[in-house]
């Protein structure tokens, strides 16, 4: 097999920080090549260079052995390189078909040929196995479907090289399966696929070779057979890895008072009949497939959406018409799953992003003075290992995983009684995942309660004292103690006894 895309000694710096150092990388036609590394290892930067978003400071890119200049995303497309990014990038106000064909609309004497466009889009959707009317507005689709549409768009460009940056982070198991089938098929067709993910299982299931980046340097390239899991983790971490599936059992909380309880909480068209109770120092997991109503339940408790049925009680007092502001002041925090749209303040500094919730809690009159801000910020930079450790850098210049840590710091600084964590480990590396799970246990011992929402069952199992399983927007099971295991959760989700 020949290399269809390769780089020679690619280097890149941002504001004096070298993020890529002389990277040699080779992708062959007809292979799925996993690109692995911790947050800030340089994966995203390398991909952005290959797709024309950034330009390398030095080094060369070769396409089928010939040097090429990829000066813009349009250049990349012209060279047959298409990308589906980690954060779904679709134009929400357009239809599915328009999103697929945008900038390559079939045109006639009277402008766009809509019929032809929709037919072409339907073909592209068919190829990714989506049965969807191309005229559906894309904003009404779930994130998972939007992701599939983004892949359909990439395919419609008749790409030879497909870059999938964390494509599975928003997909449920069935959709992941469908994506893998699709990737397999495209591989057979001779496409080269670069696959970036944090899910180790998926790497071993799909990819033929693995390249590991560490701190901007290539640690090596191996075939998947020769690099075992432990070895892969060690390469990524650059040290002897710690055991992945945190063997430690969840901390058992002391019997405490009830922080929050809901009875039959629901909202028309969203979720039905959510009843739960969380006591001080307890971690309650919400498990279920994507779209089962996990996030929607959190939204009702945090007052983002108004409940139409049921009741919500905080500290024994009934809460009427909650809003995020009122819920936050009552001691609840909500760390959203969508950090780009609902989390970060991109122009503002890491410092300001960290103190935001605490400041909102204190009100605008009692400003946190700069010295205290620095103290709080430095404390979290240290305890969460935020990179680079610069409080005054705009958060938009940090890698996704570090942005996530800043958002966690924001909520920890506000010191809530109950913190709702919605996919807190999405898109962050293993080292940081372990850190975050350890941190939850530490804070739990100090009496903080958590509502923990995660697609990774292993994580839920390792921290939760109780797990509520959601299916089709209702609670279908509650697991406690010894009942909590991945197998049991899956059984409850599947609905088999």
């Amino acid at each position, binding site marked *: 097999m020949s290399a269809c895309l390769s780089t020679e000694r690619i280097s890149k710096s941002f*504001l004096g920080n070298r993020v890529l150092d002389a990277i040699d990388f080779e992708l062959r036609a007809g292979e799925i090549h996993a690109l692995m590394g911790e947050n800030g290892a340089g994966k995203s930067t390398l991909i952005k260079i290959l797709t024309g978003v950034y330009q390398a400071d030095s080094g060369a890119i070769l396409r089928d052995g010939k040097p090429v200049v990829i000066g813009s995303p349009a250049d990349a497309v012209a060279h047959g390189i298409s990308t589906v990014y980690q954060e779904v990038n679709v134009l929400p106000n357009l239809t599915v078909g328009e999103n697929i064909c945008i900038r390559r609309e079939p045109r006639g004497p009277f402008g766009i040929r809509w019929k032809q466009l929709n037919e072409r889009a339907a073909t592209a959707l068919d190829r990714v196995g989506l049965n969807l009317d191309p005229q559906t507005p894309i904003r009404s689709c779930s994130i998972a479907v939007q992701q599939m549409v983004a892949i359909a768009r990439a395919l419609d460009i008749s790409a030879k090289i497909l870059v999938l940056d964390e494509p599975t982070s928003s997909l449920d198991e069935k959709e992941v399966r469908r994506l893998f089938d699709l990737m397999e098929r495209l591989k057979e067709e001779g496409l080269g696929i670069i696959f970036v993910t944090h899910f180790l299982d998926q790497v071993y299931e799909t990819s033929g070779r693995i390249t590991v980046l560490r701190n901007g340097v290539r640690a090596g390239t191996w075939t998947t057979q020769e690099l075992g899991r432990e070895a892969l983790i060690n390469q990524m971490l650059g040290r002897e890895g710690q055991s992945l599936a945190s063997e430690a059992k969840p901390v058992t909380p002391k019997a405490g008072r009830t922080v929050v309880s809901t009875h039959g909480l629901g909202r028309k068209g969203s979720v039905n009949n959510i009843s739960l109770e969380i006591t001080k120092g307890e971690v309650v997991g919400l498990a279920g497939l994507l779209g089962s109503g996990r996030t929607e339940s959190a939204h009702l408790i945090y007052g983002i959406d108004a409940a139409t049925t049921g009741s919500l009680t905080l500290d024994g007092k009934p809460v009427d018409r909650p809003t*995020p502001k009122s819920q936050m002041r009552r001691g609840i925090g909500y760390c*959203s799953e969508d950090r780009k749209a*609902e989390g970060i*303040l991109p122009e503002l500094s890491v410092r300001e992003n960290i103190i*935001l919730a605490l400041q*909102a809690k204190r009100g*605008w009159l009692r400003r946190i003075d700069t010295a205290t801000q620095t103290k709080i910020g430095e404390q979290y930079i240290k305890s969460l290992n935020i990179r680079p450790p610069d409080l005054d850098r705009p958060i938009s210049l940090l890698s996704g995983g570090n942005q996530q840590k800043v958002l966690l710091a924001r909520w920890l600084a506000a010191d809530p009684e109950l913190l709702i964590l919605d996919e807190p480990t999405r898109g962050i590396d293993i080292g940081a995942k372990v850190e975050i799970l350890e941190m939850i246990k530490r804070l739990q011992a100090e009496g903080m309660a958590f509502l923990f929402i995660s697609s990774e069952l292993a994580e839920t199992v390792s921290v939760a004292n109780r797990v509520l399983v959601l299916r089709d927007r209702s609670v279908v099971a509650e697991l406690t103690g010894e009942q909590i295991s991945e197998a049991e959760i899956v059984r409850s989700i599947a609905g088999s006894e």
Partner: protein
Amino acid sequence: MKRDLPSWAWALAAFVLLLLFNLAFTPGFAHVEIRDGRLFGSLVDVANRAAPTLLLAIGMTLVIGTGGVDLSVGAVMAIAGTVAACLVARPTNCPLNAIPTGKSVPAVAGFAGLAGLLCGLFNGFLVAVVEIQPIVATLLLMVAGRGVAQLLSSGQIITFDSPQLAFVGSGSLLYLPTPVWISLSVLLLVAVLARRTAFGLFVEATGSNLVAARFAGIDSRGIKLIVYAVSGVCAAIAGLIVAADIKAADANNAGLYMELDAILAVSVGGTALTGGRFSLVGTLLGALLMQSVTTTILTRGVAPEIALIVKSAIVVVVCVLQSSVVQSEIARRRMARGAA
């Protein structure tokens, strides 16, 4: 690592360059003399004439910080000026005659400010509560506001003779014109409000990511309401100064197109119109830069029609210099030089 330049660096550079140019080539520019207990000269003139624009731009900075814009400030100036003139001159058939202020200037100014506050709250209500796009919401009052002012003045230019009120526009205090004192006091007040409390952070959070701000427990609706109210009051003060200066209120022409000057001053000062980060220092420099361009052109005898073109040219240059494209290019070259 070198710290980035502040966002207002280019406005400062342009302002300083313009001053140096004038000091070198415009005869008598640096000349300042004391007459009747007050300073006279081109430099004082720049500060004095920049005052109304600066006042508008202060409120505009907060509004733009939340990601909005207030197009109605020019019309609000006309309303506030007309309210003040009517209360002092008491023309027959004026609906405001029912208000018993006498000739008390603080009371008259208070009512003019109240008019601005109500206008601002109206804008804020449309933007924050009804969630109409700011450009449309404030366009309403931009158009209708002059109509309101004309209704109050029955379409007449209302002249008045009140030395106390005239003092607001053309008087002086401790050697400096009153408008300079007023505008700088408002600037200081708003700066303290924005930076000594967390209000500025909440404004920036609202403009940077509305959903994230709401989820973090910030009452973005209230914040928006307040910034439009502040903008309305600032516009009323500017309207009062302009009316007091010419001892008349002209509902048709007072503050005409000044909303555009204010937006330019904010923009030149390095505050992005997309919201998020704002800089009051930048706004001060922006307003001074805009006025010194005008003053330079006038004192050098350039025809007024060319003056407008030169003014836009300078704005374009400053905006291009602070654009993200040029900024990243500069950063890249600085790095390349540092590495070499």
